[in-house]
């Protein structure tokens, strides 16, 4: 009998681990991998678009801020498929630790328009698009964002 045929067998979480170069543009690989998994899990196309945007912002933050564009460093993306949804974790190697007060921004369009740098929307977008968001420290010591998107019945 195969292990998976044993009624007492409890399978491990189905985790996909992706290690990407810290170079802008490679967030596309994370986006396509996550959307491929989400599509097969049965997520609605609108939710997949939200997922792609959120993961793009998280990986871009890891490349730009956490790893400071150091191409030798990796961004680690974990995708965990569960019966009730998809858990996404994005970790950098922490050249620059994200202060906790920066993890709950509420940018104002008028303020941003006055600045030459139009950035600063990433974390706000992630919080708007995902069902659960948590900022922690990765086991490697870097920054880690854990996002959950629920699979609606």
């Amino acid at each position, binding site marked *: 009998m195969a292990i998976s045929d044993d009624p007492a067998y409890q399978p491990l979480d189905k*985790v996909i681990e992706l290690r990407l170069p810290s170079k802008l543009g490679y967030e596309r*690989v994370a986006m396509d991998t996550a959307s491929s998994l989400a599509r097969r899990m049965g997520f609605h196309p609108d939710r997949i678009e939200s997922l792609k945007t959120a993961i793009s912002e998280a990986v871009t933050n890891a490349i730009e801020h956490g790893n400071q564009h150091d191409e030798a460093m990796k961004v680690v993306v974990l995708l965990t498929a569960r019966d009730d949804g998809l858990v996404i974790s994005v970790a950098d190697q922490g050249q620059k630790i994200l202060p906790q007060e920066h993890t709950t921004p509420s940018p104002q369009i008028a303020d941003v328009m006055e600045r030459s740098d139009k950035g600063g929307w990433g974390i706000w977008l992630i919080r708007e698009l995902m069902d659960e968001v948590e900022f922690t420290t990765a086991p490697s010591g870097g920054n880690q964002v854990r996002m959950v998107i629920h699979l609606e019945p």
Partner: protein
Amino acid sequence: MTASPATTMSMELTLPNQLGYELIARDAIAAFARRLGMPMDRVDDMKTALCEACINAIEHGNLLNPDLRVHILCHVDAERFVIEVYDQGLRRFVPPSSLPNIADKLNGTGSLRGMGLLLISQLSDESGFVPRDEAGNCFRFAFQRSGAAHGCR
């Protein structure tokens, strides 16, 4: 399982040992290859070859054991796009005693399976198992980058 220092760009992917996850790997590697400017027809070859290599690892190397993992290392330099698929080697690869015969398959006297390695060898520029001291099989296949639109971006 890390890329050599001469490598200019690399990504890694680890998957559950379950049929179906090769499709996620396919989409991840295709996104990486597109990012590196590989021509679309070569990306298509790569996708088919990768699926076959992953299925071999899941079915034959890891014997469909759901507790095991398949690891994919993709490293790229100016000349070659190299993909290595590792299993955890419950069963060592043993070369078949004879090459698959397409005529036998078409006239129904041969198994319809067992074409994976032949397909990979036809689609890639080089392929084969890499001898290892550790447990597990490593299957490597590579594509020349002469037709790539850009260098490593």
